[in-house]
């Protein structure tokens, strides 16, 4: 039991803090801090700034750009990045398909994709969810049928975040309808410029367009674009979703937003009920951060610690609670969500409610909080 970081860890932290606060575009970081949507160009620029310094995919195998860091180093990297309002490396590339290819792909497919994936030269989209599958991912219906060397894909994916920017999409497809549903699923990489791929925007309740439907009509995909073996898709999906969950408690960014809320609160921070609400949120966030550190310390290998479900569950609840606090601080001015920069109301107050509404998704996507409770009660509590 030791609170202190080692001298090396402290040095590492200082290094990260310095990089994130001085080397990443201030304009982009200001946009993140203000809660604005980033453009594709901004996301690519920030990602490539990180990758150039070896900070985009530090958790990958070292031969593909990884850094061989300890868990605590990864944690510090992540927290400092979030604290500095640096947009994290695009998750579809860095946390999802990259690690899957590195773990399950052939040497040929690794060489073809990993460097470009690390540098966001290819923008990946995720093609997992389907309209009738929701939390029951294994019930997916998009089919890939072998035709010569190719696969012919038909079906529909949905909730494809930022799919409008995607160059390629990694998909779970049903390649064998005869076997148990999990066993007939494969992981197929599809060029989104292929004929028959169509991306349709979904408008969300905050008025934004961050998610999409992706339709596949007789899309021909070369056989070499299958990752691993046919039928291995479910294993890869579990591996990938496990990765997703570990980094999913957005502690650093929520802390940053809460600290900002205190500044923005002005006089309201002296109201005892508001002050108590902030203090309680800060305390829960601290408890969450410390829990993340405990989970990090106990995580071994690539299997996610079961307690990472706690991080997802509580992390999204607190993320949502802070966004709700901001709406309340904004008061009547929060109605003016569509006002432009000539508004007499501050930017943050106008953005507060769309952000609050948008973040209702946090407890649904990436394994809903009901799924997390299920994991906790089954895996941890044995119920």
């Amino acid at each position, binding site marked *: 039991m030791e609170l202190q970081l080692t001298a090396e860890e402290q040095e590492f932290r200082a290094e990260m803090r310095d990089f994130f606060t001085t080397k990443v575009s201030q304009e982009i970081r200001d946009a993140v801090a203000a809660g604005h949507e980033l453009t594709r160009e901004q996301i690519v620029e920030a990602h490539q700034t990180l990758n150039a310094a070896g900070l985009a995919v530090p958790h990958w195998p070292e031969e593909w750009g990884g850094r061989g860091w300890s868990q605590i180093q990864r944690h510090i990297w992540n927290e400092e990045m979030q604290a500095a309002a640096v947009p994290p490396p695009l998750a579809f590339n860095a946390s999802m398909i990259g690690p899957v290819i590195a773990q399950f792909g052939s040497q040929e497919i690794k060489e073809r994709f990993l460097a470009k994936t690390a540098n966001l030269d290819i923008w990946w989209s995720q093609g997992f969810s389907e309209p009738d599958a929701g939390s029951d991912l294994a019930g997916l219906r998009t089919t890939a049928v072998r035709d010569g060397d190719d696969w012919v894909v038909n079906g529909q994916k949905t909730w494809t975040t930022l799919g409008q920017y995607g160059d390629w999409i990694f998909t779970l497809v049903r390649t064998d309808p005869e076997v148990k549903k999990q066993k007939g699923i494969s992981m197929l990489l599809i060029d989104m410029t292929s004929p028959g791929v169509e991306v349709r925007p979904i408008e969300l*309740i905050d008025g934004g367009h961050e998610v999409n439907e992706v339709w596949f009509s007789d899309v021909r995909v070369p056989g070499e674009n299958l990752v691993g073996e046919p039928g291995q898709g479910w294993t890869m999906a579990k591996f990938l979703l496990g990765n997703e969950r570990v980094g999913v408690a957005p502690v650093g960014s929520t802390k940053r937003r809460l600290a900002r809320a205190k500044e923005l609160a002005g006089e309201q921070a002296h109201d005892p009920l508001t002050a108590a609400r902030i203090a309680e949120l800060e305390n829960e966030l601290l408890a969450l951060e410390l829990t993340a550190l405990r989970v990090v310390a106990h995580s071994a290998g690539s299997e996610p610690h079961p307690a990472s479900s706690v991080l997802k569950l509580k992390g999204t609840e607190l993320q949502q609670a802070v966004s709700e606090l901001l709406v309340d601080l904004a008061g009547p*001015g929060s109605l003016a969500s569509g006002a432009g920069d000539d508004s007499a109301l501050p930017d943050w107050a106008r953005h507060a409610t769309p952000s609050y*509404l948008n973040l209702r998704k946090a407890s649904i996507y990436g394994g809903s909080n009901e799924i997390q409770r299920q994991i906790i009660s089954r895996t941890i509590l044995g119920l």
Partner: protein
Amino acid sequence: MDFTYDDEQDALRDAVRGLVGRAYSDFEQRRQTTKADPGFSEKVWTQMAEMGVLGLPFSEDDGGVGAGPVEISIVAQELGRVIAPEPYLTSVVLAGGLVSAVGTTEQRGEVLGALSAGESVLALAHDEPGSRWSSSATAVTATEEGGSWTLSGVKEPVVHGARADLLVVSAALPDGGTGLFLVEGSAAERTDYATYDGGRAAKVTFSGTAATPLGEAGRDVTASIATVQDIGRIMACNQAVGAMEVALRTTTEYLKSRKQFGVPLNTFQALNFRAADMYVSLELATSLTQWATMVLATGDAEATRDAAHRASLQVSRASRHVGQEAIQLHGGIGMTAEYSVGSYVSVLTALERLLGDGQHHLSALAGGIGDYGSIDPLP
């Protein structure tokens, strides 16, 4: 003590439900209406006028119908059920309510007559940047010169301020206090924009803009503003109750019809129990809202103030609970603009911010707990 509606009230409900149901029970119609300016249906507004709904609160002498709070609450509930985008609350209840409360006989007849007839849309320009549901104005000031009044300063957000034919504007008076003024919509500088609930609001700038005092010139009407805000709060609660009722029903229907893991969602007890908790929140909020409406009907302003705080607090808690759970129990589809439930949540969120959020009302109530032993709801 009677919580039931009489036959005439039931008939009113049926009529309003029929009207707005035809317009919006298909959610896509509501969505298309809010996408296009002015964010509501002029046709529905006219139909409401024809039905006499817009004139409900105003006396017959003023061109209205002279109905009571219970009738208005029925309209609010029904508008809430389909989240109708028409500005009933802001134009009729608030702006119209203030004209009714402080206007001269002549002003009342003219303005409320046109409002009741659907010929003139009113907006209340009261909120100012940085204000938090106050009953007074500070940022917009009124000046008198030789019997003529002008206004200067910015009001924002003004709900449907750009569409409004006539603005009811609060302003700080030269000798202190807050007065109300009428300003032709076109006389002010207005920047229109959409709000997240599907409505519209505006920044309204006055720059020495000519204005007509509402009622007696120079009189402080802060108390009247506060009273009308209380009425508005109680009607906002009724609107929210209608919206929550449908949000819950939409959710339970979804749980019954949507399958996951090969079974309907209502196979999962944890989800059903959460729906049960939503029902509890809704029932409690409904009770307090109906009660507050009846308190308002007694005409006791002080009791109405208290009841408005109480209903607003309970409805705030319920709106957040029911709204957040409605989306969560739907899952992804609840996040989309094409599906109804998210818009219900947006409207509930906006309704709470219009006239005071839960903490605002809780603080007011907490300050008074020493004044009585326990609360007796029956006078």
